[in-house]
């Protein structure tokens, strides 16, 4: 099987090379539509075989990025290289059909006049053979559906066909535009895992666009955060979640609590304790914490770390966990995400301490909470 083989060699190369091989390199890419700068100097590198999420709020230029990479739009400036070859920029603008980049559209864009098999075979052109179509349909779990008209399929099935169609011509890169936004919640969960499995199995490098942080964090190898047309952070899901480069990113990716602090070189002190600072600083800073990094108990930390006394203000219960808001001695309020038991009640006195990574922003972490 060619797909498993390529996967195997890919893994082999991964072992040998300390630096992963770059498949896609985007440099200072820009595109504006009239007054609107959809993409403004974005740079990004994708490694072979990885699944990378491009996440950002609506209107941040994610879809335009994908369309530029696919060749459906022509950039105003910047360059795109695919496997080391320039495909856009510097006077080069390879037509989409010559880029060998597959794309799964948000609305799937299945050809309504063709059946499932013909949709999948479409990109194979003259090389079309039934074995490849069957192989692809089997890969997406639709074996035997080749003769079915596409309008008879459910949403999830249509998506699988769209993926099979994009993968069939063995593209160097596959782009997925909000692949799950057209599916209902339950199906979305299931399809996320399936799509990840399919893409990993196919061994193809994939870039997908989403505005859902849970989606981005749960299935990608790396996540690129895009804001106002530029990539503001690229890293593993863990990195960008726990060490966001700025407060906006932090807030975009999940709930945050912010405490005033005082930096002294590589460390910063706040009400809950001392935390490491990425870039050494002096003076007042903002210390950003995730609620799950704030622990709480009646007796304080078992290992004797420093803790403060606080009063429970409110509580929201989610079953497996609960979100408890407490008031610190400084009257600052923070939320702690902890296990569902014991049940805290407003007025309970507890001890609160730091139990996880924190990010420190010297400039107060601008832009502020109400950014996009």
């Amino acid at each position: 099987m060619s797909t498993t083989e390529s996967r195997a060699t890919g893994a082999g190369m991964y072992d040998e090379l300390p630096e992963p091989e770059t498949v896609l390199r985007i440099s200072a890419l820009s595109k504006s539509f009239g007054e609107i700068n959809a993409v403004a100097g974005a740079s990004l590198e994708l490694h072979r075989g990885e699944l990378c999420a491009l996440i950002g709020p609506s209107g941040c230029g994610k879809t335009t990025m994908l369309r530029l990479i696919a060749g459906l739009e022509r950039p105003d400036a910047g360059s795109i290289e695919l496997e080391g070859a320039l495909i856009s920029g510097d006077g080069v603008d390879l037509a989409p059909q010559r880029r060998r980049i597959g794309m799964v559209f948000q609305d799937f864009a299945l050809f309504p006049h063709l059946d499932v098999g013909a949709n999948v075979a479409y990109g194979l052109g003259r090389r079309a053979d039934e074995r490849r179509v069957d192989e692809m349909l089997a890969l997406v779990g639709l074996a035997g559906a080749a003769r079915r008209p596409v309008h008879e399929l459910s949403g999830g099935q249509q998506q699988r066909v769209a993926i099979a169609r994009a993968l069939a011509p063995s593209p160097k890169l596959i782009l997925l535009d909000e692949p799950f936004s057209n599916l209902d919640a339950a199906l979305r969960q299931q399809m996320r895992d399936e799509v990840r499995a399919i893409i990993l199995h196919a061994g193809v490098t994939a870039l997908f666009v989403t505005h859902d942080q849970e989606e981005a964090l749960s299935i990608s190898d790396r996540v690129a955060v895009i804001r106002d047309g530029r990539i503001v952070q690229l890293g593993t899901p863990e990195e960008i979640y726990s060490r966001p480069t700025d407060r906006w990113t932090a807030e975009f990716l999940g709930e945050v609590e912010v405490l005033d602090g005082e930096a002294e070189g590589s460390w910063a002190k706040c009400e809950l304790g001392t935390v490491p600072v990425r870039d050494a600083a002096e003076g007042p800073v903002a210390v950003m914490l995730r609620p799950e990094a704030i622990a709480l108990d009646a007796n304080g930390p078992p290992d004797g770390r420093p803790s403060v006394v606080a009063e429970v203000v409110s509580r929201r219960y989610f079953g497996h966990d609960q979100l408890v808001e407490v008031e610190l001695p400084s009257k600052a309020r923070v939320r702690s995400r902890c296990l569902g038991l014991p049940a805290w009640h407003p007025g309970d006195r507890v001890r609160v301490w730091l139990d996880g990574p924190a990010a420190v922003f010297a400039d107060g972490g601008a832009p502020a909470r109400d950014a996009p």
Partner: protein
Amino acid sequence: MVAAAAVLPAAYLVIVCADDLVATMETILRARTLAMALRSIGLAVAVTATAIAIAVPVAFLTTRTTLPGARAWATLLSLPVVIPSYVGAYTYVAALGPSGMLQGILEPLGIERLPAIYGFGGAWLVLSLFTYPLVLITVRSAIVRLDPQLEEAALVASRSRREVFRTITLPQLKPAIGAGGLLVALYVLSDFGAVSLLRFQSFTREIYISFQSSFDRGETAALGLVLVALTLALVALYAGTRRQGSHYRSSPGAVRPLRPVPLGPWKWPAIGGCTLLAALALGLPLGVLLHWASKGIGDAVDWGAVGTAAWHSLLAGGLAAALAAAAAISISVLVVRHPSPVSRLLERAGYAGYALPGIVVALALVFFGTRIALPLYQTLAMLVIALAIHFLPLAIAAISAALMQVPPRLEEAARTLGRGSLASFMTVTGPLAATGVAAGAALVLLNAVKELPATLLLAPAEFETLATQVWTETTFGFYEGAAIPALALVLLAAPPLYLLSGEGAHE
């Protein structure tokens, strides 16, 4: 290239008028010119509104309801498009005129005089009856391509059928209604035969007077230019209906046929309405033609000549339809996918070819044909090119409306799958817009087979078509002889219309 050919008629008028600008201005500024233009506009507005009022309900009945025999109705009610309006007018005068057949029937009952068929009322009635199929054909093919999910969504939101039609379906059909309506309006502006027979003084009649009586090409061309200006204004008006957003299907996935609306108690009124319309637009003219034909059949009818003429009509019309469809696709792609002021202007100028009387278009091609394409002059190729230019707007209207309904996303998908833009078009957009392309080609075919002035001037010598046969016989006053080729025209048109009406008709 294509667009350049399409603006030849307008270019010819400009060249001729440039000879004597003073005379041109004098002609254009005559009070009579304005008065006649207003009369024609009035007639065009009335006929267009009536044609839309007739065609839209019929289009809906024959695509979306349980009307029994929907496909047969669609074919039958599209057929009047092929009856040349002057033949239609002849039959109406013969049937309803002051000494017509109906009068003959009613006279013993003491009815001395019928309401006059002549004048505005008659022209309105007759032109409406023979042009509404232009709207019917474009709107039907648009309904078939509609996204049913929008309507389903609205229905689920417990809106009434009527409200859904008004708020969802109708706005979606606007481009097609606009396109069909535009064609009707332009046809009315260009028509001479019917208005003249029905004694309605129109702008085109004015052009004929100047052309036929004073042999003044300058005056004819100046009046022609006024007509071109009117056309551009109308087309700009139509562009307004198109600009209001795009009309692609919004939801993912493919078109599922919508469940037909049960007519219930409305079944009989619907059938009654269709029957009445068929009787007026088809039954009456065919009845008169058959009556004449039966009188003429005793004389030796040269069936061989009719057969040859039918073949010639089909040949020239078919080739013109194919050529016009190909040209219209390229223009429509340009206008729909790459809109720019230049592409829009070219498209609009092309419409002039349809609004000008056939004789003016024919003379323009005589002018250019003898100057730049002499080897082709008066060959079949020349005739085909002339017919294609004359009727190109019919194809553009139908095809651009169809293209507008195909989401560009699908073409993009094809391109990311390794197909070039031409291949993407041929494999995705083309097939999806096929109903529109077929409708456009059919409209050109149906109009080309009945075309007369350009055929007379540009066909190879002694290349008789059904239309020239009808003309020869009526010029000679021999209606019995004219009836047979006229009936043959209708027979010729039936198969393509039947194929076309199969789209979306619920059996």
